[in-house]
């Protein structure tokens, strides 16, 4: 028999590890250890109790995870995008809710302040957000404007002193625990603009959604803005046009494409280990053809996702990443992870439905991930438009 494939972990079949730099590996390992110690022992209980562990926020800040790919001069770690992706992978190996917290804080709050904010705004907010002293949320989606954000109803009215915002935002991760919200609204001329809204401003309120059977270790809220008045210097000067809001989503989707790999790996590794140990009909279930096929399908999906994410990271670091490439990665990797989680749940049999194992929790979470940040179907249409030149989701 030929020599076995020399991989370090069962989920690294193509030795992607060898492609990583020392910094990328160290960054991944430090967060991996954090997740092993601080997340995995408790996540099942948190998830069942619908609890987001706010006590982890300062720890994530101290570790440097929040906005880790933004420059050091703003108090961030200044990591490359592959290292950043690996962090998201490790966080989501713990739970999609924990990764979502970091994605929102880094890609949807810190990134727009970095990319569209004034120098004063950057210096004031980014170091505090990086340390986790401030928590942010991102308000784009509305109760009746999700896949079609251009249909937003939130309005921004210019006054002598600043802006008055009114409207409702829905499905907002971190909503009720946030100190500030990046809110997108249409001005009187119809232009979409981005604003930093302190959540203690009169007229602002956040209401949690408690009926979720997915993403339970994460805060999801509705934001109500009732004549919320903010000064001029809280408008993001560069955040003019819906494209700027979508630019934030591109950043977040990039992290999600990596995060999904982590969830899939967690499910595959537990299914593989269970299949080797669990005996049925007098032999380990890993010795049955159906279970082997399931495991091989899972590994194939994981390997494909890893390579897609890695290459996307190279393109991002080279400044050549296109949003349609991000769509392909997000669409593929999240759906692949969801399928892996479901397969893993089946391999685990009845045990798989409990929180003693991770597959069911990941599968339930990934239903949200498959939908948020551009649904699977919307990414299909973005890619369809990209390769055919025909837009199949134009306004009726």
């Amino acid at each position, binding site marked *: 028999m030929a020599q076995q494939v020399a991989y370090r972990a069962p989920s690294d079949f193509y030795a992607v590890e060898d492609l990583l730099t*020392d910094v990328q590996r*160290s960054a991944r390992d*430090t967060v991996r250890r954090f997740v092993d110690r601080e997340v995995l022992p408790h996540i099942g209980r948190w998830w069942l109790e619908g609890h987001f562990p706010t006590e982890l926020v300062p720890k994530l800040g*101290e570790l440097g995870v929040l906005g*880790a790919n933004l420059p050091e001069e703003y108090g961030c*770690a200044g990591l490359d995008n592959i290292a950043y992706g690996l962090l998201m992978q490790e966080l989501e190996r713990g739970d999609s809710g924990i990764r979502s917290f970091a994605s929102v804080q880094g890609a949807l709050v810190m990134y727009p302040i970095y990319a569209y904010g004034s120098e004063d705004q950057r210096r004031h907010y980014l170091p505090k957000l990086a340390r986790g002293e401030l928590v942010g949320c991102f308000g784009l989606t509305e109760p009746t404007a999700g896949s079609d954000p251009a249909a937003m109803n939130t309005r921004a009215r210019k006054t002598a002193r600043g802006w008055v915002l009114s409207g409702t935002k829905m499905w907002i991760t971190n909503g009720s625990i946030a100190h500030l919200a990046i809110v997108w609204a249409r001005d009187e001329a119809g232009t979409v603009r981005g604003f930093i809204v302190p959540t203690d401003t009169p007229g602002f309120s956040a209401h949690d959604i408690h009926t979720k059977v997915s993403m339970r270790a994460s805060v999801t809220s509705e934001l109500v803005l009732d004549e919320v008045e903010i000064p001029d210097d809280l408008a993001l000067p560069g955040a003019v046009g819906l494209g700027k809001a979508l630019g934030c989503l591109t950043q977040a989707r990039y992290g999600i494409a990596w995060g999904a790999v982590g969830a899939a790996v967690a499910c595959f590794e537990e299914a593989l280990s269970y299949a080797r140990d669990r005996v049925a009909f007098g032999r380990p279930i890993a010795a049955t053809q159906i279970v082997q096929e399931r495991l091989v399908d899972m590994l194939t999906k994981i390997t494909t996702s890893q390579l897609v994410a890695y290459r996307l990271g190279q393109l991002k670091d080279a400044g050549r990443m296109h949003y349609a490439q991000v769509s392909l990665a997000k669409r593929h990797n999240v759906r692949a992870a969801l399928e892996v989680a479901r397969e893993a749940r089946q391999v685990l049999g009845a045990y798989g439905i409990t929180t003693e194992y991770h597959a069911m929790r990941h599968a339930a979470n990934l239903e949200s991930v498959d939908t948020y940040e551009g649904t699977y179907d919307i990414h299909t249409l973005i890619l369809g438009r990209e390769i055919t030149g025909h837009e199949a989701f134009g306004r009726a």
Partner: protein
Amino acid sequence: MDVVVCVKQVPDTEQPIRVRADGSGIDEQGLNWILNYYDEHAVEEALRVRERHGGTVTVVCVGPPRATEALRTALAMGADEAVHVWDPALEGADHLGVSRVLAEVVRRMPHDLVLCGRLATDDNASVVGAALAEYLGLAQATAIAKLEIGDGVATVEREVEGGVEVLRVPLPAVFTVERTINEPRYPTLPGIMKAKRKEIRTLSLQDLGLDPAQVGAAAARVRYARFDPPPRREAGRVVTPESPEEGARLIAQFLQDTAKVL
């Protein structure tokens, strides 16, 4: 307080370790190398001493070029400087040889306190710290579980059978630390980035004025004869008791009659 921490890079034992077919050592292909866990605690303790009393933390490692990675981990945790020693003549050096090299490095830098891990998880030898103290002519205590720095003196605690031994040791001194002494911090991501930019000096035996014949393989009084993989564990015996009481009785019987540990 200027603290020097001596560290070792060891294989990550979370992965399976394979012995080479000819028994000459372990198969290093595909291994992850990490900072020895006990040394991580020594680095942590040094950082805490610096936080309380000021000063510097310098980490020192004798090992092949890859060992600089272990030093980078310590730098990422917050150490100020790192010194790497390697020389082809050190391939096959024994613990005393390595201790003599470390002693020469430490002697050349300010050191109020020298910390080591109690043992390295690769060979579990627990020799280097003690030998280092001997070569430096300093007081020492091994496997300490608590360290308090006073005026020119350290108070340390050692966990001994049935109690705690409290020692007062004049400084400078060499201590090896137990894992219970602290909970090491995670290397932070900004720390990792800063560590990447720090220069790590690599010293040769000649730089240290040491003779390969005294510290290298030629001087080794201990040589590895052969490595054998641990014996394969046999499959366990499964019993299916009728009741919890029956289960407890079967386990007790096994411990008494078969395992003979009760």
